[in-house]
């Protein structure tokens, strides 16, 4: 009897121990770059990147805040692309998903297949890139960080379509039609207000996709003034001088480079880049989790 009790208590304890280890594994990398970003240069020279630096210094942040224009510009690009992209994306996704959720729509199967086929087959990177650069002249414009590939995905449209089909009662649409409301009015006045949960979920997915995007910036942007924050981070990871070279003359770069606590500046930039997401995460994680599970269960 006693033995049974013990094993009943050991089981859960083991699970918690396992999960605490896993929690640490998930979080330690973030803590490490934070600790490096506040380590003094001497401390890094002695102990390397350490979770427990000998000496704490905010020099790296001071250095970055001294000349904040580059980072502010990159943040500006990211914020504009994210806001505009998410709004437009949500609009055209909903505009496409709603009609194909209605059983009476003529050509419904054709239109759905037109969308669905894009999930099965693609032309690949090169023709896609040439379409945007040569035919549409997107190179070095902010549109190239909004339109290519991120604007409307088949997966999100189907997610929204099944939401519309399962939650908007047919009778509501019918009675509105009898009352003389047009389709557009029904959509904006009735369907959209009833669909705020799915709008929030897909809006969140889109916001994250735009916020985290560096791929389009890498492909389409050569002009450093248009770099977004993710790509500025990419450039700085491989070449720390990049941060300085943009706004200073060659002589100044040499001087600044000598003064700069290089390693901690790099990690401080990473912290500045990831901080908004980390701070926002506790507030949106609940919606994000319910979003991915609802999407997966009703594929």
């Amino acid at each position, binding site marked *: 009897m006693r033995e049974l009790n013990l094993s009943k208590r050991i089981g859960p304890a083991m699970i918690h121990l*396992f*999960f605490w280890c*896993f*929690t640490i594994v*998930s979080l330690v*990398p973030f803590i*490490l*770059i934070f600790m*490096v970003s506040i380590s003094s240069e001497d401390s890094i020279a002695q*102990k*390397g*990147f*350490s979770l427990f630096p000998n000496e704490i210094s905010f020099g790296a942040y001071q250095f970055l805040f001294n000349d904040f224009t580059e980072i502010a510009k990159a943040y500006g690009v990211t914020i504009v692309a994210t806001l505009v992209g998410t709004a437009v994306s949500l609009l*055209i*996704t909903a*505009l*496409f998903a709603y*009609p194909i959720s*209605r059983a*009476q*729509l*003529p050509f419904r199967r054709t239109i759905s297949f037109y969308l669905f086929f*894009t*999930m*099965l*087959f693609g*032309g*690949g*990177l090169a*023709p*896609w*890139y*040439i*379409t945007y650069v*040569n*035919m*549409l002249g997107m190179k070095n414009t902010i549109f190239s960080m909004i*339109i290519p590939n991120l*604007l*409307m995905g088949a997966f999100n449209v189907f997610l929204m379509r099944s939401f519309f089909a399962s939650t908007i009662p047919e009778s509501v649409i019918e009675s509105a039609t009898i009352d003389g409301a047009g389709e*557009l009015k029904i959509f904006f006045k009735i369907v959209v207000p009833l669909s705020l949960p799915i709008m929030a979920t897909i809006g969140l997915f889109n916001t994250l996709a735009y916020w985290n*995007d*560096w791929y389009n910036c890498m*492909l389409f942007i050569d002009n450093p003034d248009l770099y977004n924050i*993710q*790509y500025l*981070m*990419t450039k700085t*990871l*491989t070449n720390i001088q990049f941060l300085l070279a943009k706004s200073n003359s060659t002589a100044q770069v040499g001087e600044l480079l000598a003064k700069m606590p290089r390693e901690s500046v790099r990690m401080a930039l990473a912290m500045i880049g*990831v901080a908004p*997401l980390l701070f926002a*995460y506790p507030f949106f994680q*609940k919606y994000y*989790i319910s979003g*991915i*599970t609802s999407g*997966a*269960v009703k*594929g």
Partner: protein
Amino acid sequence: MTKLVKLKRDVKKYKWLLLMTVPGIIYLFINNYIPMYGVILAFKNYNYVDGIWGSPWAGWDNFRFLFNTEDAYIITRNTLLYNLVFITLNLILSVTIALLINEIKDKVISRFYQSTFLLPHIISMVVVAYLVFSFLNAENGLVNRLLLKWFSMDGISWYGEPKYWPFILVIVNAWKSVGYWSIIYFASIIGIDKEYYEAATIDGASKWKQMTRITIPLIMPVIITLTLLAVSTILRSDFGLFYQVPMNTGALIPTTQTIDTFVYRAMLQSGDVGMSTAAGLYQSVCCFVLILVANTAVRRINKQSALF
């Protein structure tokens, strides 16, 4: 004739609904269908002056060059092997974690674990590259410093040695995606009717028995479906993982080059549009076939989770 008349009437009646889809139709045409037509570039010697239509034909030359070099073999092998390991490891880890989360009765703690494990999933690969760099940097990285301190070993030049990268990338991928998959499996476990467990408890079945005899069999359709769908994209790779995390290092290409990084490098670094398109088309066609096969298999097992 009457059918046509009815269709005409319907189009007129629902013209606003049809018009609503127009922005999406135009977008898909530009973003997906024009590039699909652009695959003819795989059979051309592309030059920027003549453009897609004007460039001279090259027949199967691009494919011949691609498959005559070692590249085609290496990128296919790398992509396949990485994905096989990713699929297997992610499946084992995430199902295990999902089963264990299900054993935690305290809702708040269970929530805390879930959102912590999901955190790596929401950050960009650029940030992941920074995190990996902080561990593996030759001079100051945490790993080399610990090797020195604990084992008095010389540091390893991680970014110069291709042989370590299969392990590194597998760990990084698991770290980033296991939380995501375990939440999806956990959601399907919660969906199981509680009566099964009540009946099993009355019959005196142990926790272990309940797990292996009730939970796993009941989520099996989900496991099989998700795994088959993952297998259908086995020739696609996460570009960021293979490009950003090794920091685009030339020395690491033998073990970090996949089809997607090859397609990118052929186009933007070597400027060989024809070769790049050919490799991309090879990937697209294989994926197309695989997805049809996988879908047929999924439909046999569980009709509702089939894609089409």
